[in-house]
């Protein structure tokens, strides 16, 4: 398991490859890898967005993410998990979050990664403040529900 907070842009694909390569003990064991990447859009709620600042609560963020990953590992036979999250100033098209889950079979990979992602959205202490094209700044008030049709 690895949970990391990045203050600078990261390449999720390179991170997945490097992590899978370094985790020698899971070679031959996993049959499914589920990957979720959240990327910053240049629009939200009908407005053009030119940037964002992601604040977090250092320490609590890692503690809550570790708890969420442990919960998922109790519910599904998870072999390994990688969770990466950006903080600081972010530009459109930059990755914000990566959740990668390795399991023996696909159902567990899909379910565990969905669980981790939804729990992260509601419990990991991160806060987004958008900078709009109009120069106005606004804090996001709440996350959308990931299980509703058409939500993001």
């Amino acid at each position, binding site marked *: 398991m690895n949970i990391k907070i990045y203050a600078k842009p990261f390449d999720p694909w390179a991170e997945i490859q490097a992590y899978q390569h370094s985790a020698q003990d899971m070679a031959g064991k996993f049959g499914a890898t589920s990957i979720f990447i*959240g990327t910053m859009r240049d629009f939200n709620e009908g407005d053009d967005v030119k940037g964002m600042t*992601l*604040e*977090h*609560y250092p*320490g*609590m963020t890692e*503690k*809550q993410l570790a708890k969420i990953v442990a919960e998922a590992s109790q519910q599904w036979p998870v072999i390994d998990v990688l969770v990466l*999250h950006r903080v600081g100033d972010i530009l459109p098209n930059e990755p*914000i*979050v990566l959740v990668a889950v390795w399991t023996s079979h696909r159902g567990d990979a899909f379910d565990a990664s969905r669980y981790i*992602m939804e729990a*992260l*959205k*509601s*419990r*990991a*202490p*991160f*806060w*987004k*403040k958008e900078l709009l094209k109009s120069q106005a700044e606004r*804090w*996001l*008030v*709440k*996350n959308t529900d990931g299980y509703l049709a058409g939500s993001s």
Partner: protein
Amino acid sequence: MSIKVRYFASLKENIGRSEDNLEFFGLATVADVWRAANPDKVLPDNTLAAVNMDYVELNGVVNDGDEVAFFPPVTGG
């Protein structure tokens, strides 16, 4: 007892401070900590609270040396 209070995001901006250090005598709850730190401000309805980086209810009791945090609903991911 000594309690450290921290605020984050829009709540931090509204209050104009990122933290407080308070002294209490006797039993205190998380709600008491808010009232002592912000006597003129009602705790916003949707505020979340944590003690030592775990989520708690407002009636949770605090202990000497605890770090209490108040913040708005989280919006990461």
